[in-house]
């Protein structure tokens, strides 16, 4: 009888999930599955609501990245209204989207993943968390907290509150930016850039200790998908959706949001509430692709800001083609934080950033609209259909984490095969399997912050007999 190990729940991620590891009679891993055990139902219960409510309604999907949903949803609503929103509104939406990116990346890297990186994958789970980090590496912990605070406070000052603000609305934003706030934020950026660069250097210095993890943490050829600007720069708000292969050859130069269904299809697995999108032309499940920071850096030609471009050049040396190991999501995240800070500074310096005209008003003029933007974890897509009254008749949301579902499953199988052996549970080995998931920083549509306190039960089973059991948290 084959054995099964269950990691339930997975800790230090956003949301609820579990991992099952299947083993053969010889104690070798045959497969591993990532199950998302929470169900939300947003696509269904949004039906019948006025489309104008959708940004605020769908933002409630998540307490970590509500701004990403606001942006993608408002863009879908712009399409329904068939308006071109004021240029200043586009820039302000870009700024809040980047603030979201900075705070979320800081949370993922410093609060959730850096305990593994700085204290070690095998460190005592009781101290392998942000509190343990505060004791052993107080500067790194403080840096992370400062970066996250910066991102959150920009959101708060622009939009009124940190979590679930309602400033991004169909047609633009609800209030213009003031000169005082612009100057305030501009002043805060240089010290944040110092922190971001310092963190990148520290991370680069850690590389040698993680060679096996780099080799086995979801390190396989796949497609990568992400937005780029018209001149192929890194982009998070708008642009064309580019697909590249493992050699960074362009598979598709630019998918228009409205035609996404020609390229992306969605499969449903019986053991998870998370959808499994795949690249339609290759089919399921081989049409697996990755999105998020790593994918964005693989699809773009350059960042478009000096410090981030310098970091990107070093990043490119990792591989002649696309960077394939998901361990490098962490690296990509740090480069994106630098980019986010530089880009925010550039946008705030635009001459028309204080323009008072920031909102277009219109009735619904189309019955269907797709909004696509880059959330911290990857491409986020909101697709709505409305009736003649402007009430939602159908909606489809593809969340960034969903795009990565197939890749996460393949990744944990790879890591489990490398680190889990025999019928005895090694804590460090199981933490590595979880850490693969953490590379993707999956946001399981939830605001649960589990910083090591969440109980984790892992069982190694032979049929109904429990061979080994570990509890931590």
């Amino acid at each position: 009888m084959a054995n099964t190990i269950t990691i339930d729940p997975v800790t230090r991620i956003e949301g609820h999930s579990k991992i099952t590891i299947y083993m053969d009679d010889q104690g070798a891993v045959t497969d591993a599955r990532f199950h998302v055990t929470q169900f939300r139902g947003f696509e269904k219960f949004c039906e019948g609501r006025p489309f104008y409510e959708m940004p605020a309604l769908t933002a409630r999907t998540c307490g970590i990245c509500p701004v990403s949903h606001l942006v993608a949803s408002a863009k879908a609503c712009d399409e329904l209204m068939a308006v071109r929103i004021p240029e200043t509104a586009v820039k302000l939406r870009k700024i809040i989207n980047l603030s979201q990116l900075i705070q979320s990346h800081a949370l993922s890297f410093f609060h959730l993943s850096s305990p593994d990186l700085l204290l070690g994958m095998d460190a005592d789970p009781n101290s392998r968390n942000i509190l343990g980090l505060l004791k052993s590496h107080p500067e790194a912990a403080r840096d992370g907290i400062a970066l996250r605070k910066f991102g959150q406070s920009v959101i708060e000052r622009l939009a009124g509150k940190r979590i679930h603000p309602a400033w991004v609305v169909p047609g633009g934003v609800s209030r213009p930016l003031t000169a005082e706030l612009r100057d305030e934020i501009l002043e805060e950026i240089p010290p944040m850039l110092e922190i971001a660069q310092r963190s990148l250097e520290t991370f680069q210095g850690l590389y040698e200790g993680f060679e096996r993890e780099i080799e086995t943490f979801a390190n396989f050829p796949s497609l990568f998908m992400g937005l780029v600007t018209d001149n192929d720069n890194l982009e998070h708000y708008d642009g064309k959706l580019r697909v590249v292969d493992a050699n960074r050859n362009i598979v598709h130069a630019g998918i228009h949001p409205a035609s996404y269904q020609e390229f992306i299809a969605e499969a449903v697995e019986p053991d998870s509430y998370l959808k499994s999108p795949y690249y339609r032309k290759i089919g399921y499940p081989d049409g697996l692709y990755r999105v998020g920071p790593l994918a964005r850096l693989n699809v773009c030609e350059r960042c478009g800001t000096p410090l981030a471009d310098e970091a990107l050049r070093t990043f490119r040396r990792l591989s002649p083609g696309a960077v394939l190991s998901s361990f490098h999501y962490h690296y990509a995240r740090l480069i994106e934080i630098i980019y986010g800070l530089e880009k925010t500074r550039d946008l705030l310096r635009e001459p028309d950033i204080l323009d008072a005209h920031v909102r277009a008003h219109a009735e619904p003029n189309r019955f269907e609209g797709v909004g696509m933007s880059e959330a911290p974890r990857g491409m986020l897509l909101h697709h709505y259909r409305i009736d003649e009254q402007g009430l939602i008749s159908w909606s489809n949301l593809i969340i960034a984490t969903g795009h990565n579902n197939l890749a996460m499953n393949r990744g944990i199988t790879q890591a489990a095969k490398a680190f889990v052996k025999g019928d005895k549970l090694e804590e460090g080995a199981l933490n590595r399997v979880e850490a693969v998931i953490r590379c993707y920083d999956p946001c399981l549509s939830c605001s649960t912050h589990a910083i090591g306190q969440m109980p984790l039960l892992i069982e190694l089973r032979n049929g109904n007999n429990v061979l080994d059991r570990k509890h931590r948290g």
Partner: protein
Amino acid sequence: MNVRIVTLSIDGRDVGAREGQTILEVAGENGIEIPTMCNLTGLKPIGACRLCVVEVAGSRKLLSACTTGVTEGMQVTTDSERLRNYRRTILEFLFTEGNHTCAVCVSNGKCELQELARKLGMNHVDVPYRYPRRDVDATHPRFVLDHNRCILCTRCVRVCDEIEGAHTWDVMGRGIDSKVITDLHQPWGSSTSCTSCGKCVHVCPTGALFEKGHSVAEMAKRRQFLPYLSTMRGAKE
């Protein structure tokens, strides 16, 4: 015109009032606050929501302050454990009977129901939520009716009838199935009596009636017109 003066006590305070005034009016004039919901100055009181119930010595029943006239020697209590319990339960019924999701509502932060819950300290709800399936009527070119947020205060019905004179609104159904309707239950957008004046929208205490084009927490109700218009109408009559 002779106005008879009556004296009564409210919460132990002796107060003077003109005959014909309601307990609510007299309490208000004397700085004693009684919670209300369906009542709105400028519209005829109907005593529907029962939030303004008070105790009157000699009466075993609780009486609604908005519809009960003052009498000589009346002893009124506006605040007691019993009243607080009743009011709190009524408020909980209002919340659980419909679908009030403040977080995504156009009236969030500007809603009388929400504000009353805050004032009365409703930090949790003891009665089970009903989660009824209710419609949204967005057929009107400028306004939306969301039955999910309607508490049947009938302010819209009264303002349309008493002030605008159109009488577009009415209530149909019975008990818990009651709902406000336009033009004998036709879609609002096809109503031939509606003048699109928007008074109903602005007297609505919740986000049940709102203007199109507003996002969450953006619908502020403006009611400055009401005392002026009701005075003018009263003078004409």
